[in-house]
């Protein structure tokens, strides 16, 4: 019988509205007790003084690149990066090669995750076969195989009739449809946010309306279909406003926002660094403000990283040719803690958006520290200062706009199902 005694931390469990200095006892993979006078025998002690003790973080949106693009990332390396970032579970997108549009691929991912990944891996299956936006996938079979949601992600379904049927049919699988809402026609050749900065840089603009108009369409279709729509990586003030209004009239919509869309503006592109290129692009200061307000008032339910590894040589090209996306798993904690430091989110609300809400959206366990629940736990030192060195990171790739930057706050211990998988001084411990 294994026991871990987490002593002296600030326990944050949004599911129980709990924010108190408590000890946590983990026994046989589950939370066994919470209390201020625990004195278990034979337990491994973890000193949590100065730390938050929270349910392990859950990332709704990552790209693990396996199968098919293992030179960028694989389930093992992405899983380690997640553990090191404080995540106990990640939902991985379907744009692998082959695409996760068939239960055999879902099986493969889950098999690989069981042996290779220190964290839980929840496969998101494609919504249409081959991500082609034409024929829907076998959502019932995929769901039975373990798919937690359906998404064509960056291959936005442009045909509204297909989108309507995907949403309608998803009700049968009882899982959300996650959308990367960007109208490809309005995006055009755009490679960064349309606006004064793109005009100065001479790069083709991707207008905010490309996202906002597509979110409007998807909200109306979800309302009609009575389906659960999850809007991925919201980046525009217009989309935040549309989601707020749709939620108010009862549409089943949830939404996520990335650490980079909460903290960086399109001015980060001024040096033409291709590690500032992603889709949707970094937006204006007004959009960032709206996203932060949306996260604070709950319009945006969750933080998701959109962790998108690309090899160094793929990013060492011109800004137009460079692939979209940046790493996110290992930097999410310090980056998003900025909102706590700015007084926009309490620690408890921060944990709700990084753990409790994403677990709820995916209908998975986790996101809480109730006695008897699986012991997915993270210890976060909100004051810890460190420098993000991508060469020392766990991801195979290095495409981060925060490379070399000073960070404040860090996940120091991650437990998954009661197993210590990461300790800041010892690195990733298992598997």
């Amino acid at each position: 019988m294994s026991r871990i005694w987490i002593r002296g931390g600030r326990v944050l469990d949004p599911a129980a509205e709990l924010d108190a200095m408590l000890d946590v006892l983990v026994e046989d993979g589950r939370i066994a007790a919470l209390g201020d006078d625990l004195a278990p025998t034979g337990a491994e002690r973890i000193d949590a003084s100065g730390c938050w003790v929270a349910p392990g973080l859950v990332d709704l949106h990552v790209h693990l690149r396996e199968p098919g693009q293992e030179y960028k990332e694989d389930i093992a390396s992405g899983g380690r990066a997640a553990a090191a970032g404080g995540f106990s579970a990640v939902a991985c997108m379907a744009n692998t090669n082959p695409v996760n549009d068939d239960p055999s691929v879902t099986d493969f991912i889950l098999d690989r995750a069981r042996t290779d990944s220190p964290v839980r891996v929840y496969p998101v299956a494609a919504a249409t076969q081959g991500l082609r936006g034409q024929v829907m996938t076998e959502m019932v079979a995929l769901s039975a195989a373990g798919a937690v949601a359906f998404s064509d992600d960056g291959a936005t379904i442009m045909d509204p009739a297909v989108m309507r049927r995907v949403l309608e049919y998803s009700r049968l699988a009882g899982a959300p449809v996650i959308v990367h809402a960007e109208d490809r026609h309005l995006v055009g050749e755009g490679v960064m946010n349309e606006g004064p900065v793109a005009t100065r840089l001479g790069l083709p603009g991707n207008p905010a309306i490309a996202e906002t108009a597509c979110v409007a369409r998807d909200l109306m279709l979800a309302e009609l279909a009575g389906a659960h729509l999850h809007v991925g990586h919201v980046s525009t003030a217009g989309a935040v406003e549309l989601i707020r209004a749709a939620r108010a009239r009862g549409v089943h919509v949830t939404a996520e926002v990335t650490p980079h869309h909460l903290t960086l503006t399109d001015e980060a592109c001024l040096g033409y660094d291709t590690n500032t290129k992603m889709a949707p692009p970094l937006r204006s200061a007004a959009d960032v403000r709206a996203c932060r307000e949306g996260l604070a008032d709950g319009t945006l339910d969750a933080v998701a990283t959109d962790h998108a590894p690309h090899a160094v040589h793929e990013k060492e090209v011109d800004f137009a040719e460079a692939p979209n996306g940046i790493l996110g798993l290992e930097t999410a904690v310090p980056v998003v803690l900025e909102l706590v430091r700015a007084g926009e989110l309490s620690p408890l609300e921060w944990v709700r958006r990084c753990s409790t809400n994403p677990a709820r959206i995916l209908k998975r366990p986790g996101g809480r520290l109730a006695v008897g629940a699986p012991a997915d736990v993270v210890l976060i030192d909100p004051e810890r200062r460190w420098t993000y060195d991508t060469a020392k990171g766990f991801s195979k790739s290095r495409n981060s706009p925060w490379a070399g930057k000073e960070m404040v706050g860090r996940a120091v211990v991650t437990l998954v199902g009661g197993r210590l998988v990461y300790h800041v001084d010892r690195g990733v411990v298992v598997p």
Partner: protein
Amino acid sequence: MMGRDLLGIEGLEREEIERILETAKHMQEVGRREVKKVPTLRGRTIINLFFEPSTRTRTSFEIAGKRLSADVINFSPSTSSMTKAETILDTAKTLDAMDPDAVVVRHKVAGVPKRIADELSAPVINAGDGAHEHPTQALLDLLTVWEEKGRIDGLSVTIVGDLLHSRVARSNIYAFQKLGAEVRVAAPPTMVPAGIEALGVKVVTRLREALDGADVVMVLRIQKERLEGAFFPSIREYSATYGVDRAKLRFAKDDAIVMHPGPINRGVELSHDLADRRPGVVLDQVRNGVALRMAVLYLLAGRRGEPREEGRS
């Protein structure tokens, strides 16, 4: 004192621009000699790195380098064996290992000259990157207007045409404003970049209003093949609404001059007549381009290795 590279006009000080123009004046004199060659850059190597085809600009840089006695090498990766597998930084590092004294870069995507400059120890001169900047074009335009008008300060400059895709427009907006001119821009609403007002210009939709009282009318090239049907309905309609000819020019000042960076779509954005004759000054621009580029090469390529030469003497 200039910076190491010439990547754009945006980062230049007025004094730096004036110094380049003064230097170009001296270089014009070289161009008027019977033997148009001086030994200034003898033994120096200049690489013209043109990822995007360009006959005019590349030739102008080549002549400028040769008149200064530099060894000029043309390297066009788009037509050589280079494939996408070689990254821009590979190219930059490879060139750097050949120890050039200056590298002139053109690329269809904005930012490439800067990325190359970040890797190279040699100075980089931007010969046009995407819709970002084309600094030597703006400088030669300044030189041309300076010769014509005797000043830049207080002039009214109008730029007409495809602002959205134009690096010439952006560089000229910075250049003329830095030297005290007022700049208006005019284009169909589909070809006005978002937030261009932030560059300090007045945006006007109708050509007549844009030309009103202008001292200088700068006409931009329209990429017909790419834009017709998408950004404007037809060449016929574009030409009728934004094409500059002698009749429309009467709204400008009586002594207004007309400029075009070339190559011209005759009869589309600029009438045949203005392309060839005054107040059109298109060939003066081309002529000044050589002198201006000599000045830039002299100021940048001539500097590298200065300490080494001093050590030798």
